């Protein structure tokens, strides 16, 4: 409708990460339980725009999506010329610093792909800080399927090759417009940023042998993976979950590696019951406190 203004608002928050002040862009909508959403490698928070605008979810959740430094509208904090490389420690530190800067009380964190991987690390080391954790396309490790050096070299267009690589991770049933929008973010990424994120994914963030330490009685853990994701396959997620007592696994049909942006309607069918369960638990634990 012409003139329609979406309910999503975007602002910047100044966040100290590793002793350096960062200007972090975030979008939000809704009120209630804080729900922080983490985008995939090489993309940005726009992936969550459908969830952010969801009328039903925003009644009970304060839905927040922020752009990681170097992504979207969050510039690098400084211009040293160093190659960007995301590490497990830095990623964890960034999420916790962002949540602290916004004074979020026991947020739910939902991350996709690298965001799904780091959610596992939050579950291992910081479970008590969170109300629930949701990993989309998450596993403790995945077998590499291409050489990341192709992602950043002067004789290959970075945007084109990044988008073309991940295009195969989108389910064939996903609507064309959503598919193109998902890929557009990859075409817009800064040089070497997708590759730098994958340093965490491929090299630094191997959680095999650590996920066994996750205690889901401290913080519930939900893992949802699209059947068309051949990067983090359903088998990768099931294997990861098998090592964790109490993790709830859902394999999502007709979805790939970018469920929230490649087919928002289909994703909604799967995430609605999860958010419903978190809401229910939250209400009952609050009632328990007041009883």
């Amino acid at each position, binding site marked *: 409708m012409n003139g329609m203004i979406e309910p999503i608002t975007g602002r910047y928050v100044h966040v100290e990460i590793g002793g350096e002040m960062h200007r972090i862009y975030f979008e939000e909508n809704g009120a209630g339980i804080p729900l922080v959403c983490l985008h995939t490698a090489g993309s940005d928070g726009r992936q969550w725009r459908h969830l952010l605008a969801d009328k039903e979810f925003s009644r009970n959740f304060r839905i927040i999506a922020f752009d990681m430094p170097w992504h979207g509208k969050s510039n690098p904090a400084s211009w040293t010329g160093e190659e960007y490389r995301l590490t497990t420690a830095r990623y964890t530190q960034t999420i916790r610093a962002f949540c602290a800067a916004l004074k979020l009380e026991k947020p739910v964190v939902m991350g996709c792909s690298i965001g799904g991987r780091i959610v596992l690390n939050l579950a291992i080391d910081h479970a008590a800080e969170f109300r629930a954790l949701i990993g989309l396309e998450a596993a403790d490790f995945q077998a590499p*399927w291409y050489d990341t050096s192709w992602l950043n070299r002067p*004789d290959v267009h970075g945007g*084109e090759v990044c988008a*073309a690589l991940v295009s*195969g991770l989108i*389910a*064939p049933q996903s609507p064309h417009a959503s598919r193109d929008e998902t890929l557009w973010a990859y075409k817009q990424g800064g040089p070497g940023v997708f590759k730098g994120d994958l340093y965490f994914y491929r090299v630094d963030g191997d959680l095999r042998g650590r996920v066994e330490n996750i205690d889901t009685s401290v913080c519930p853990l939900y893992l949802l993976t699209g059947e068309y994701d*051949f990067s983090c*396959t359903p088998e990768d997620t099931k294997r990861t979950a098998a090592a964790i007592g109490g993790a709830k696994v859902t394999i999502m049909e007709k979805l790939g590696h970018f469920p929230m942006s490649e087919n928002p309607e289909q994703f909604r069918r799967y995430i609605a019951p999860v958010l419903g369960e978190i809401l229910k638990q939250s209400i009952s634990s609050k009632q328990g406190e007041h009883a």
Partner: protein
Amino acid sequence: MTHTTPSPHAADAAVIKAFAAIPALLEQAPHLVSRGRYLDCECLLGPVDHPFHASIRSGRIVELTPAPVLMRSWRFSYRATPTAWTEYWKPEPRPGWHDLLALTKRKEAVLEGDLYPFMAHLQYFKDMLALPRLQHAAAVS
């Protein structure tokens, strides 16, 4: 000594036939040709045992010849099993059979040689090699 080469079975023949039709299908896809407008390349594409030498000039396949061709060079090769091509060309390919690199990951396809032209034009090759999708689906249904 003479010998007769084994005939590929019917499914293989269907894949080979579908492959041979790609240059004509490409001519009907001007946006795809445009995407490859800076691409000049000799490559080997098709079923593992019955690939084609493809000569690409400015995004058009100007020659597609069944291999082997005596002493013909190629820069890169992407070859997949007939099953992989049949699955890749389904209107809704099954998970794991829906992308060229999903096929290499599951070892149903091999990518060899100097990968530069392939990677620099990755979406072009994915879309070009998917062109038989609708035609092939109609033929086998």
